[in-house]
């Protein structure tokens, strides 16, 4: 149970580096610029460092460890070839300020990704610059803001967001300076056209929606919703968090959206890395393209003298949109994530539809298997669909409200019980519109056997008595963590003994 700072070794231990080019005393910094007290970092030899982080890794759960049905997060397998490619010097050892002729190969990959994302979403222009979904949202909202400014429609200050939306939607819009109008969902979890019609007016700037929605249900009236918003002069924004369900089947463009963000760390297998990095490109329709952050990659036929650097007789160059909002990241976005996602895309190509079909197949199969096993075990009275539906998309929600009312078993109890069975727990208590919500997304990379076994284990957990479940988990590295204690007794860094005295 030791942390890094309890390892500290003897002074001078733990590093090996070449000598400096000049002796240290040649630095000659004045006193007020010179560091007086060294950082109290540990002094680890390599074997100690490797053991420490190996030990920590064994106390962490990833997709590689086991089934990770975390709804809304699309925890699919991360192919390892992506990691190999991202370490090639042609990406890892590239500086974003290198001239175009140094990076034709990389720019061709950027261009291929822009084009592929445009095709999949039915958009006209993609920028790869935003580095996360939330940053993509913010970027698109900013572009739309500038679009309205250019049309003199500065009175459009309101952004409509369904009550089931991801928290980033209202947060991103508010950060850009918009006022948020929350639209209540219908009883069945779908958007309410009447509520949208009642909310839109000449102040409406944007409606932000994800489809399939956060309950994993397709919004069949999405085109009508888009029409209502467009009629009022507003723009439609598509939150791409749930894009994994619909590639090659439908597209935000077909549904009537004007702008969209993609989560390459969900749909295109960039590993989540315990919380990031991600990549959140955005795509827009033609009328918004001039506001995108640059640079964006364009291609043209080569000119004389360029043959030596060119890829397939094409020249890839950076291009600045005419009325760009400027930058949201200092460089060209998370290029490493784009390259990993490119490798993933290449694996499927036009078979991306098959990928989405399997994501939806697995989700529906798991939903079916859970109900099937629950019925067999006689515990199907403990939960119900988060919203009524015949088919789900890539994820589905269950409400554990009956279990809570009948037996005092909460969604959190079931989640902790699943940890004891060796799974990552599904997302709980989101979306907020479903009481005692459990949101389950298996992804396409799980086998039928895994899904069947999980369904069995899920039902086994429901059969455990409330008291035992309240005490779960018992087999994890630590048991239920006291989050209230953490907030009341803030300890945000290692307390060194000498500071305590």
């Amino acid at each position: 149970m030791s942390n890094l700072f309890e390892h500290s070794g003897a002074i001078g231990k733990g590093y090996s580096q070449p000598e400096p080019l000049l002796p240290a005393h040649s630095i000659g910094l004045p006193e007020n610029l010179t560091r007086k007290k060294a950082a109290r970092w540990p002094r680890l030899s390599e074997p100690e460092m490797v053991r420490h982080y190996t030990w920590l890794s064994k106390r962490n759960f990833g997709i590689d460890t086991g089934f990770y049905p975390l709804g809304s997060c699309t925890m699919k397998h991360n192919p390892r070839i992506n990691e190999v490619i991202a370490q090639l010097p042609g990406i890892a050892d590239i500086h974003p300020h290198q001239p175009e002729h140094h990076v034709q190969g990389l720019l061709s990959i950027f261009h291929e990704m822009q084009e592929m994302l445009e095709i999949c979403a039915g958009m006209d222009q993609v920028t790869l610059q935003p580095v996360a979904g939330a940053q993509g949202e913010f970027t698109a909202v900013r572009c739309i803001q500038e679009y309205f400014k250019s049309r003199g429609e500065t009175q459009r200050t309101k952004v409509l967001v369904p009550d089931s939306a991801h928290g980033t939607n209202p947060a991103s819009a508010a950060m850009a300076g918009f006022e948020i109008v929350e639209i209540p969902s219908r009883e069945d979890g779908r958007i309410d056209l009447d509520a949208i019609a009642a909310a839109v007016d000449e102040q409406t700037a944007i409606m932000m929606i994800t489809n399939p929605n956060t309950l994993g249900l397709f919004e069949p009236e999405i085109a009508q919703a888009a029409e209502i918003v467009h009629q009022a002069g507003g723009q439609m924004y598509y939150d791409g968090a749930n894009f994994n369900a619909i590639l090659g089947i439908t597209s935000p463009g077909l549904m009537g959206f004007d702008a969209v963000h993609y989560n390459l760390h969900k749909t295109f297998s960039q590993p989540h890395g315990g919380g990031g990095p991600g990549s959140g490109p955005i795509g827009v329709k033609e009328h918004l393209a001039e506001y995108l952050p640059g640079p964006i990659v364009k291609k043209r036929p080569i000119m004389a003298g360029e043959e030596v650097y060119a890829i397939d007789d094409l020249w890839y160059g950076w291009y600045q949109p005419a009325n760009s909002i400027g930058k949201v990241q200092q460089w060209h976005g998370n290029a490493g994530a784009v390259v990993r996602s490119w490798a993933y895309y290449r694996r499927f190509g036009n078979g991306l539809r098959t990928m989405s079909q399997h994501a939806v197949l697995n989700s529906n199969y798991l939903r079916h298997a859970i109900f099937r096993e629950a019925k067999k075990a006689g515990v199907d009275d403990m939960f119900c669909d988060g919203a009524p539906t015949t088919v789900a998309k890539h994820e589905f929600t269950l409400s554990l409200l009956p279990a809570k009312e009948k037996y005092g078993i909460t969604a959190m109890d079931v989640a902790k019980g699943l940890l004891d069975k060796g799974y990552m727990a599904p997302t709980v208590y989101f979306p907020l519109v479903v009481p005692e919500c459990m949101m389950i997304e298996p992804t396409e990379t799980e086998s039928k056997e895994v899904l069947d076994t999980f369904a069995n284990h899920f039902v086994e957990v429901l059969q455990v008595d409330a008291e035992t479940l309240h005490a779960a988990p018992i087999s994890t590295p630590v048991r239920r963590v006291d989050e209230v204690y953490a907030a009341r007794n803030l300890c945000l860094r290692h307390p060194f003994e000498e500071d305590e005295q």
Partner: protein
Amino acid sequence: MTGTRTVKHTPRRGVVIIMVDQLPNLGREQEMLAEMGLAHIDDLFSDIPPHVRMQGDLPLRGPQSEEEIIADANRLLGSNVALGDRVSFLGAGLYRNYIPAAVFAMITRGEFLTAYTPYQPEVSQGMLQAMWEFQTLLSELLGLPIANLSLYDGSSASAEALTCAVRVHNRKATQKNVVYVSQLITPDKISVMQNYCQGGGIEIRMLKHNGDGTINLESAKEAAGSCGVYVEQPNPIGILDGGIPLLKEIIGPNTALIVGVQPVSLGVVEAPGNYGADMVVGEGQPLGSPITAGGPLYGIFACSKPYLRLMPGRIVGRSIDVDGKVAYCLTLSTREQHIRRHRATSNICTNETLIALMGAMHMALLGPEGLNHLAVRNMTACILAKQKLSEIQTIALPHIGSHHFNEFVVELPGKAKDCLDYLDENGIVGGFNLNSWYSNRTNWLLVTVTDQTKAEEIELLAAHLALWSSKAVAA
């Protein structure tokens, strides 16, 4: 137990075979559908109305096998000029470094690589503890008590620090919704700041500089009463500015001093927290991360206590479990978007945890003496380069009297662009053309050296600069 994976029908030759390594249920669709009482996979999409259906196949290339993908990656990425293939003096915010092999070995462990945000702390103790340790490593390095788990990059960290300063100080500020930023800050970073600030109606004013590249302390007095001041140490042209430690005194307690740092420099240079900085931000890349064409990187964010409850980003706290055992969890989440929604302190959700973890691992391997040594290597390389280039009569070093870290300005007798083209033809990535930052400086070249720069590379650059500049003077 494993079902048969025999492919029963092949809609397009080769396609199924290739994708089967990622889709375990390929070929088992009928079996699964039948159990659900469905006949065809399209039945799962019956809720999607025909008028929004895509017609036909995606107009994209066919699937590839792993072997074909790596071959294409090698062909495309292999055609790039990697900095390691050349002699390079390009930095300007991102710095070539050496990352110990153990960092890559540990970071690619699937338990770290393939985990999501640690929402279930009982099975995420590894990453939570590693990030709590990261917070401590940064806190020690920067001289401030609080650090978060990373923001996207140095630019978003600086932009978020400005909006945080306004949240904290605006009520008492005499210059409401105003922040000051050093005029030398790169336009790309200022652009990011403007995007983050405009929503809150925050005005960014420029802090003037002296001819020697240091902050004009007299004009810094104007910033007193505003919400915050952002400067960089070293500044964007590599100068270590002795005036920066005096700034807090000048702007006073009600204006946040925000200092952007190159973290490696803090092995020799005073930590901003020790001279009154309220927030320290920076590009974490030189500790633990390759440049990777500009991302993923990690933004450093640290602050003092008054900013804690209004700061952006995730933070880990040490707690206990029900048995009283030490345990870690995310804390102060009520600032964040998933709870506070449009009233959150930031919209950030996904951050750069894995890259921050690379940073933590690198820091853990360096130790305090290792960091000092690394900083000395960077700094002495810079001193040597300045010495060698100052011997060339036809070029000038306008800030030669200053102390530099990593980089310095060379004033050429001709356009920096032409010089860079010449150097490129000779296999040298010669530096950064400062004309793209400062429109009135067509002849300024920013030359960067790091711990990776060798003495003979500096000699080579000096020889070529002498040759080019003597020709330029003659012309």
